[in-house]
């Protein structure tokens, strides 16, 4: 593999072809925040918190570093006024759903995000898709998926599969940045095994 030279935050970085900006930055200890990224999973590019500024042929663009492939002579800035402003906004939008998630709170402190900027709509899930993708790509079980689209999108366990597969796995639990997954799972659990429900008075 040929070596690609690029510049990240003023630092010359040598990267392998096919690497993403995020991977190249991580390889030299430059940290870029991520929410939907996981090294075992295919890049997804949904949370956009890893947005960075790149300069290609004199033009400045914002791109998602977790999916943008490294290019020769690329100039990357992982922090800038605009990048920070956008990360702050993304955090504020997500904090409306999961105000108590530790990962979001840590980032909120870093970027000065106000968790009360938007009206709370505590659904907990921030749609990072880690559970969904882990179950598809690593476990290959498809026990949890997204349903509906747009603002109505949510994660849901498929009872028929979950009943068989999830008891002895639960590997996705620790991936969830907001603990929404557990809530959804517990709900499904209740639905699929009525015996675990509190007995109604007879």
């Amino acid at each position, binding site marked *: 593999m040929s070596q690609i030279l690029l510049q990240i935050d003023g630092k010359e970085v040598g990267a392998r072809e096919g690497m993403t900006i995020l991977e190249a930055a991580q390889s030299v200890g430059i940290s870029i925040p991520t929410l939907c990224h996981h090294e075992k999973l295919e*890049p997804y*590019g*949904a*949370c*956009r*918190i890893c*947005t960075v500024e790149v300069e290609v042929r004199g033009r400045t663009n*914002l*791109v*998602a570093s977790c*999916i*943008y*492939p490294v290019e020769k002579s690329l100039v990357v800035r992982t922090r800038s006024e*605009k990048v920070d*402003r*956008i990360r702050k*906004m*993304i955090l504020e*939008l*997500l904090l*409306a*759903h999961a105000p108590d998630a530790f990962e979001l709170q840590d980032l909120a402190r870093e970027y000065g995000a106000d968790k009360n900027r*938007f*009206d709370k709509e505590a659904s907990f899930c*921030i*749609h990072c*898709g880690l559970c969904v993708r882990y179950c598809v790509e690593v476990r290959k079980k498809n026990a949890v998926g*997204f349903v*509906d*689209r*747009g*603002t*109505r*999108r949510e994660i849901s366990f498929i009872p028929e599969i979950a009943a068989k597969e999830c008891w002895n796995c639960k590997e996705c639990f620790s991936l969830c940045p907001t603990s929404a997954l557990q809530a959804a799972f517990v709900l499904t659990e209740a639905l699929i095994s009525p015996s675990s429900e509190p007995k109604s008075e007879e």
Partner: protein
Amino acid sequence: MSQINSPAELEEFRQSILSKRDPDKHCITLCSGSACHASGSAEVIASIEEEIKKQGLGAEVDVRRTGCHGFCERGPIIVIHPEEICYFQIEPKDVPEIISQTIKEKKLIERLLYTDPGTNKKIIHESEIPFYKYQKRLVFGSNGSIDPKSIEDYLAIGGYAALAKVLSGMTSEQVLDEVKKSKLRGRGGGGFPAGSKWEGSRNAPEKIKYVIVNADEGDPGAYMDRALLEGNPHSILEGLTIGAYAIGSHEGYIYVRQEYPLAVENVHIAIKKAEEYGFLGKNILGSGFDFIVKVHRGAGAFVCGESTALMTALEGRAGEPRPKYIRSNIKGLWDRPSVLNNVETWANVPLIINKGADWFTQFGTEGSKGTKIFSLVGKITNTGLVEVPMGMPLRDIIYKIGGGIPGGKKFKAVQTGGPSGGCVPEELLDLQVGFDELTMAGSMMGSGGMIVMDEDTCMVDVSRYFIHFLTDESCGKCVPCREGLRQMLRILTNITEGKGKEGDIELLEELSETAREAALCALGKSAPNPFLSTLRYFRDEYEAHIREKRCPALSCKELIAFHIDPAKCQACMMCLKKCPAEAIVGGKNKIHVIDQEKCTKCGTCFEACPPRFGAVKKISGEPVPSPVPEEERIIIRKSKEK
């Protein structure tokens, strides 16, 4: 029908079709596109056929169901050839007269002709009607004269000649060069040069390549692709096949909306016929070139019009966009080079090949060549599909072709480019339509939607409407689009309901920046446009809503009130009787008063009040005047004073 095996055989066959057709024989063409179908064209054609039989003219008159003629406002439309007599808004009851008078007696039926609103004169021929006269119908023109279900009709007007020319005498490089030279740009939204897109795929090392028709037209009020697919499907197949030849693809897809049943049907028929005649399949026209086309029906997601989402859906997965740092013409469908062009773009290709790039580039502006079909809708006299040369000023489209704004109202803005386009205000009406021109004005060409708005339209509400549409249609994958739009819609709704506050505009701008800069796909990146363009030209309307709780267009229900001017009310009881909420008190000779508590602001009283009185007023941003005291409400009429 046996297969046609060479260009020479095709010409021979074409001549045999033409020789069987008598140009002097009467032919009644009737628009059978979706719009005219909805206005009852199926009943009309049934009665035409019945009447012809009844009057014993079966051998003398042909009847042809064609695609959309464009002038949907006046449908169902029939044209009687060879005289080209054009009749509008035909009902089955008109048919016996048309057959006996016009066909038999050669007499015109005045009331069915078009009346020029300017001169009040009757116009007989389509080409003289202002709606058609100023158009340049290169792509759309054949729609009104051929039966889309008949491949022979398409062949009779020179169909598949471009394909024959390409396969018999041009190398794939020459085809590509011609398209590049024509400077044809994508008609679906982005306006990307088609030739460059093709070239990228052609040069990509991967052997298997695809060509795709994007027929997932989803902009509210836009239906030009539907009309082309329904009315002239072979032109699209021909263009697609030529494209496939140019890039070296042997497999094509048509991604068409499920909601277009007639388009789906006609495309299926066209493919079957083309295969039968040897225009699709193995060894096309004996050239050795193979190409097949498959139809994929979309399941109703707006976002699937976005190229990467469309390809994901074609692969059988949920239609979500994917990051596009490597273009889909290099790595598209199943990671293979894929050229995706819109219906109208493909339909332009046979024209360019037949007549040459030099001919094509004589139409249009420097940056935008050829013509563009627009769907002209909204507050416009002549609703319909219009095809104009690029560079025509918006003013000409709206006034000369569209006939201006109905009801004596004033023009306010024209929304172009679909939901993620923008609004162009009156001061820019002389803007020439073109990709770069519209983008510079803060709007975009998009796929050709053109929604005209009059003075009664509230621009804040327009922005709210489109953001609502996009919120519904966002796939929900990335945060700036899903969450950003959710908040934008909330703020805009508040503003239109009088709950806007200082800082809302700035917050909307900040949310717009996040979506524009950081969203995953083109839908998300352009989603703030309805807000940004209305803010750019109509900021005062936003400020009036927020600061004065006033809707200048008197349109936002929460911000307006209806009031009866006691000095003008003649106690005629019209509004009182019609009010569905029984909110009007009064009586004979007693001035009417609206009970604001009961009023639902439906506007019925406003419509009902006779214009000569004009007593009902719509107000906004000011308190409703208190009602006149009970004892002063009696009207004493002079004539009865004695």
